């Protein structure tokens, strides 16, 4: 049974057909990359899946239930969580406070005007676990806005992990990163997928990363699906080579 299924999904903005005829399915535990040249519709696809706006055609099914017209907040509660191309974290707060608000939200205790010592301890434990998972324990008390770009992206992943996502959508997780930061992020994505079994869909421009870690790859071009397969199939696909890889190489 597939976790996420898109059936003939399309999205039109006025006269512009940004996406059309997208059909794909993501299996539980899969690490799926979405690639394609600029303007291929990758971010639009993410926006559709995460409920930013509804598709104008087709159906999106998550855990066997249609989610085509469900709003983002409700999708988050069902377990579809995303990061953004531009990092969205709480810049003026410390890393610990960033993770804490995420944990408190995940525990559903935001409305509480006071907190017991036991609950506070549970929150703290979970925050420390998360920091450990994303390897940010040493920077817990740094102000997030003062961290390097790569660390800020890692904090964002820590925040979304607090919600125990069933499907994690990462929009260009390594964009703008140096080599070391990229390795750190790639390692984190792989660990989250293999160790915690989180199903992930990520948009990425760096082909080395895509071919290195993705189970399967979906190639978009000009709003349409060009190909789908594992790394070897995609690398050997002549249509992909002409449309995308040839031009990138």
């Amino acid at each position, binding site marked *: 049974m597939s976790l996420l299924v898109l059936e003939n999904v399309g999205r039109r903005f006025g006269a512009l057909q940004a996406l059309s005829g997208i059909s794909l399915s993501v299996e539980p535990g899969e690490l799926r990359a979405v690639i394609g040249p600029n303007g291929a519709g990758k971010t639009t696809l993410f926006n559709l899946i*995460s409920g930013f706006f509804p598709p104008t055609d087709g159906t999106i099914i998550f855990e066997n239930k249609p989610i085509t017209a469900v709003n*983002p*907040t*409700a999708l*988050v*509660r069902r377990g579809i*969580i*995303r990061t953004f191309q531009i990092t*969205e*974290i*709480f*810049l*003026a*707060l*410390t890393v*610990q*406070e960033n993770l*804490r*608000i*995420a944990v*408190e*939200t*995940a525990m559903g*205790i*935001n*409305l*509480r*005007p*006071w*907190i017991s010592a036991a609950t*506070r301890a549970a929150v*703290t434990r979970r925050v420390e676990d998360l920091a450990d998972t994303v390897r940010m324990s040493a920077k*817990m*008390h740094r*102000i997030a806005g003062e961290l390097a770009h790569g660390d800020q992206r890692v904090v964002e992943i820590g*925040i*979304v992990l*607090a*919600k125990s996502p069933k499907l994690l959508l990462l929009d260009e997780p390594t964009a703008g990163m140096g080599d070391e930061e990229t390795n750190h992020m790639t390692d984190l994505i792989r660990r989250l997928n293999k160790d915690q079994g989180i199903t992930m869909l990520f948009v990425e421009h760096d082909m080395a990363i895509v071919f290195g870690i993705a189970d399967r790859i979906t190639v978009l071009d000009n709003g349409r699906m060009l190909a789908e397969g594992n790394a070897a199939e995609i690398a050997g696909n002549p249509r992909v080579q002409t449309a995308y890889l040839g031009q990138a190489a």
Partner: protein
Amino acid sequence: MSTDLSSPRTASTKSPGKFTMSRRGLGNLILAAVLLAVPFWLPLVGGYTDLASRVLIYALAAMGLNLLLGYTGGLSFGHAAYFGLGAYGVGLMLKYETHSTLLALLAGTLLGGLAAALLGPIVVRRRGIYFSMITIAIGQMFYFIAVRWNSLTGGEDGLTGFSRQPIHLPGVTLAMGSVDFYYFVLLCFGICATLLWIILNAPLGHTFVAIRENHKRLTFLGIKTRRYIAISFAISGIVAAMAGGLDALLDNFTSPNLLNYTLSGDFLIIAVLGGMRNFYGPLVGAVVFIMMRDYVSSITDNWMSVIGLVFVVSVIFFPMGILGFFNRKSSS
């Protein structure tokens, strides 16, 4: 940041350890001692007790406003409405219904608080400048009601014919002279400040701050941010209403000016002047504002220009307010 004596943002941050905790405790202790001793030392420096009561009342209103402004990031230009409703609630109760000061204060607080709780959900439908415009519009509505409804409110002349009554507690009777009343105000201030502190250090307060910092991220964690801004608005209105009730008790009088947007502006000036990212910023702002108003207005009728000048200078040179300035200095 470990020297930040009064920001709840760092309150539960563990790493700076015991030192910070005890420093904060010590700070609170010194503050409490200074405030408790006001009736003894204030006359020595040429002040009078009612002036200190006024400082605490304005500080309380600005602290309430600051929950919304400094911690949740909502700029309200209409908090005088809830302050004024609290004042009229107290005045009308004492004039027509009861001789109990406590009951009247409770009624005034509930009246203003209820208005804020009911209007909050409307106000939070917009963000930014439109949010502020709606708060002004709603505030002015109450102002004109008070001016027009002569038979009940006394119109532009204000509401007279009531006075605060002695409070009888088991074993003690507070005559509610100037000094008694100061301690009564201080007690109300202490209770509200403690409750606000607890909220700011709980998940609810963390959520307010997170909304101020990045409401988009919070929305994408599944939080309906409007609901929380409305809650902040309501709590903030309740505190302002209690301050307004105390103001009516201090003067044994209330007028439509207590509902006017100029007073809302005064509360904003107090919060920003003192430091809106600091828990005690509004208290510092109120001390400066009320003292200056008292002294400068005895010299010139144009006291507002002097306050305006001080405000402009402070916003340019100390954008984080007086406390914010000192905190940054001590941490660098």
